[in-house]
């Protein structure tokens, strides 16, 4: 592997722009904490969640961030596991982004608990049969392993180990995303979820969502710090994003097609794809159209795909589509009633047999946004105090011939 001659340096982070960014993030986080206070004080009755839709908008944001976190590590993995050195300069930022997104997602999950004060209980009582408990272990391990990876990349003496640690991080992230997908895959009673395709689909989605977020961060960091960012690295990431968007769409299509063939899933499939109202709209218009096909068009149309604006817009749309997809999976999957007596008409005062309504409350959205803001805040602070960003990502710097020197 070529020696890393890249010069990394903390960003200045002195200007008004930087501080106003930090200020705004602080405001969003404070608003989220206020929402949590209300949810805990009055109970979850102030949210849109019910006894039928037990996981709501906070979980949409949280799962999205957790899934994206492992995907954001891709750039680092590609450079040290697959030896693609043009990505190497961005490996540090990739690792930090991964950690930050995971932290933001977990923050939401924890703050949405009915008893967040019992976090210590969650950490001391493990039910090892629970996929959820395993996920807690996977998340903690991810933090440890990615931070170790970051350290071996940043500590010159340790550099030779970076590909080994990078490989470990890569494998861990695959397991982690599989674990996240399995949270849903294990729910046998929910016809929308029990598909083996869930795990690979989550991995493909994580690649796509994580890279979209990463592209936006790279663009923002370089534009605001005035450091040169060449087209080469940007276009490489663009191509990769295109492949990942297509892969996520492909696995999603496989999931729906296999479900359509399983008679017992016909109901929930018809619900999502045809007559689910908001869920059908989110599926076709936001996820498939605006969040997948349109960004693909933007990325591969020369007029837009060769501009950072075009690539940025595509990335934002991928994120939007990803949130919509999580909404469909998490909330749509619960809105569709459990089948106590398949084939029968069922009714009760507990809303058996009817589609469960759900509307997100502003508290939930505030908490979700706070998790996102926390992730961005971690990245913003990290790039100011740690040498994470290369001084230059100009084409000459990224070009193989120069990198090999």
């Amino acid at each position, binding site marked *: 592997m070529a020696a890393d001659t890249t010069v990394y340096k903390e960003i200045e982070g002195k200007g008004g722009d930087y501080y106003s960014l930090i200020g705004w993030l602080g405001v969003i986080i404070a608003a989220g904490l206020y929402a949590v206070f209300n949810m805990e004080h009055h109970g979850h009755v102030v949210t849109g969640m019910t006894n039928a839709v*037990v996981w709501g908008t906070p979980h949409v944001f949280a799962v999205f961030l957790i899934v994206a976190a492992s995907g954001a590590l891709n750039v680092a993995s590609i450079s040290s596991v697959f030896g693609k050195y043009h990505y190497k300069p961005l490996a540090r930022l990739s690792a930090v982004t991964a950690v930050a997104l995971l932290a933001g997602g977990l923050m939401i999950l924890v703050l949405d608990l009915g008893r967040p004060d019992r976090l210590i209980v969650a950490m001391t009582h493990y039910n090892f049969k629970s996929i959820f408990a395993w996920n*807690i272990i996977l998340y903690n391990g991810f933090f440890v392993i990615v931070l170790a990876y970051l350290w071996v990349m940043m500590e010159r003496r340790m550099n030779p180990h970076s590909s080994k640690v990078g490989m470990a991080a890569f494998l861990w992230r695959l397991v982690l995303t599989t674990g996240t997908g399995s949270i849903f895959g294990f729910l046998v009673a929910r016809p929308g979820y029990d598909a083996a395709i869930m795990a690979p689909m989550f991995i493909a989605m994580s690649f796509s969502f994580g890279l979209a977020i990463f592209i936006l961060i790279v663009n923002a960091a370089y534009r605001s710090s005035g450091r040169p960012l060449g087209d080469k690295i940007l276009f490489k990431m663009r191509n990769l994003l295109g492949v990942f968007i297509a892969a996520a769409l492909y696995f999603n299509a496989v999931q729906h097609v296999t479900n359509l063939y399983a008679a017992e899933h016909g109901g929930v499939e018809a619900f999502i794809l045809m007559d689910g109202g908001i869920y059908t709209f989110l599926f076709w218009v936001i996820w498939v159209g605006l969040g997948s096909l349109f960004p693909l068009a933007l990325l591969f149309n020369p007029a837009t795909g060769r501009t950072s604006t075009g690539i940025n817009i595509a990335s934002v749309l991928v994120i939007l589509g990803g949130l919509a997809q999580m909404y469909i999976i998490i909330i749509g999957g619960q809105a569709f009633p459990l089948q106590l007596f398949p084939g029968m008409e069922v009714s009760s005062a507990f809303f058996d047999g009817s589609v469960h309504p759900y509307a997100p409350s502003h508290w939930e959205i505030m908490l979700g946004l706070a998790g996102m803001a926390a992730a961005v805040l971690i990245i913003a602070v990290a790039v100011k105090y740690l040498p994470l960003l290369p001084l230059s990502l100009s084409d000459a710097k990224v070009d193989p011939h120069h990198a090999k020197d």
Partner: protein
Amino acid sequence: MTDRRQDDMSTVDSATPDASRRAFLKGGAAAAAVVTLAPGVTLYATGADAAVTGPATSAKRWGMLIDANADAGVWDVAVAACQKEQGWGGGENPATDPQWIRKVTVKNPKTGATANMPVMCQHCDEPPCVDVCPTGASMKRADGIVLVDKHICIGCRFCMMACPYAARSFVHEPVQGQKPHMPRGKGTVEACTMCVHRVDRGQQPACVEALAASGSTAMMFGDLNDPNSDISRAVSKYVTQRIRADLNVGPGIHYRGI
């Protein structure tokens, strides 16, 4: 760990296990004697034994048999008895108010035939709620009763995602009117306990007792492991069915006449 669980098994019905109550539970002989005097219900010597012998044992498998042919009105009696016994109900937010037991109406769209039955926690042999619970707050006693230990429930609601029967409720608001034997708390999950506090005293669950008192035999409670128990005899006599038996979670609630 084992110790803790062992402890839970005898005290989980109380979130504030105080010595006197424990002593009461352990001194089950007196309670059992009271129970054998209770009128109008078929009593099981085995029920009294449970209280005498203390901790739940896998020699027993508590279960119920519900007759869906019964007059639909009896299920309202069962629901009301549960509310009274456990202190839930009376809220104004149907989507978020806890509902430990509910009357479900099933209609065959082809024939138009309908049946009514109560649905509550099915006290599964292989409870998905217990499998997924990250903290172990959801747990199954050796005698098959599935409970939530409210000391260690963190309110993640994964068990509610996993339960095939929508049997559990999340407490969305501060609770009022708690019963001493059934502490409840905002932010935790709760469900039918099969009246474990009564069963351990050798009594019948409140719903079963209320129906019996109203002259109905539509609900039967007992030890499915004891071939001589009334419920075992009935289960082997009638064609019974369990809800979503295809999911292989082994519900402990049997139905007939669906």
